[in-house]
């Protein structure tokens, strides 16, 4: 619950922080503090939520339910930001709106945190296993990662690729489109927004596929495809002529990368034996 409250506070703090022109150096300092609060709360909340989702989901639909667009915090955040920018572009006097439009997603985020707090208070909890008392390390609080060195290495290995690919096509892609492809600000915003929406549509579909064929084979498919196609895709993207070819190439990349985004989470959760360790494992590599 504390993590949700901090998340709300951090978002609200960013939404109302005055500009540098108004309060000078205090503005970036306040923003920095707010981002630290957000980061800490996200780290605490994300692992817990991810663990909870996989534990309460029916094993036949675990991938599908886990991949509904209620998770992927970074992508949701990016989507909210791009969405606000796109919405601002469509309104009259959008140049003026851009001066404060970026605050809108943070207000929305703070409101959503309140909803999350209500959900947290009312959700059912899985019954703890009796094995918890006798798991490795002999302690009730044996969710410590050092009790599971092999599993920790497994999680690091699992997440290295996906994290690299994920951040390439989310946060870095905006810079890439602007600096390397040469799109304008508006085109960059539109293309990244569209590609993130496309990626979110793909998630539950891939989740359902993973429920049928298993996480391992989807991960292998992702790994092979990305090794083969990353260089050709990014090379073609750097020479894209306009926003539509750029969007299509990024969409093609998401059709490959989504194979990781959904499955490694479920895969690593299933590979790490103890709930406490699983929660740490989920939280650590990405955040």
């Amino acid at each position, binding site marked *: 619950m504390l993590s949700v409250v901090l998340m709300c506070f951090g978002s609200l703090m960013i939404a109302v922080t005055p500009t540098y022109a108004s309060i000078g150096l205090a503005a970036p300092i306040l923003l920095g503090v707010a981002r630290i609060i957000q980061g800490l709360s996200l780290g605490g909340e994300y692992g817990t939520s991810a663990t909870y989702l*996989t*534990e309460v989901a029916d*094993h036949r639909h675990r991938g599908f339910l886990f991949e509904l667009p209620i998770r992927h915090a970074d992508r949701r955040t990016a989507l909210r930001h791009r969405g606000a920018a796109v919405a601002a572009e469509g309104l009259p006097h959008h140049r003026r709106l851009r001066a404060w439009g970026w605050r809108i997603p943070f207000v929305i985020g703070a409101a959503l945190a309140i909803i999350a707090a209500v959900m947290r208070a009312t959700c059912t909890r*899985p*019954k*703890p*296993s009796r*094995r*918890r008392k006798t*798991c490795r390390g002999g302690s009730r609080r044996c969710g410590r990662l050092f009790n599971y060195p092999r599993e920790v290495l*497994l999680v690091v*290995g*699992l*997440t*290295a*690729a*996906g994290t*690299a*690919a994920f*951040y*390439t096509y989310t*946060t*870095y892609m905006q*810079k*890439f489109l602007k*600096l*390397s492809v040469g799109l304008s600000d508006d085109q960059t915003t539109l293309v990244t927004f569209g590609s993130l929406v496309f990626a979110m549509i793909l998630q539950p579909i891939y989740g359902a596929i993973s429920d049928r*064929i*298993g*996480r*391992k*084979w989807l*991960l*292998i498919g*992702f*790994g*092979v495809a*990305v*090794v083969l196609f*990353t*260089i050709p895709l*990014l*090379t073609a993207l*750097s020479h894209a002529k306009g926003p539509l070819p750029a969007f299509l190439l990024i969409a093609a990349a998401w059709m490959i990368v989504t194979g990781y985004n959904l499955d490694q989470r*479920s*895969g690593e*959760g*299933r*590979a*790490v*034996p*103890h*709930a406490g360790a*699983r929660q740490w494992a989920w939280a650590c590599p990405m955040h």
Partner: protein
Amino acid sequence: MDSVALWFKSIGDETWFYYYLTGMIAISLVVYLFMRDTKADSAIDRHV
């Protein structure tokens, strides 16, 4: 990733980032190949 990519760009050869990314993913691919198939043997159901 941004820092690595922008650094490669700053030294004038962005294509090295493509190879860096591919290399990272190739390492994980080795893990995927040797990991347990969780469809048949899931740890979640053993320890909740």
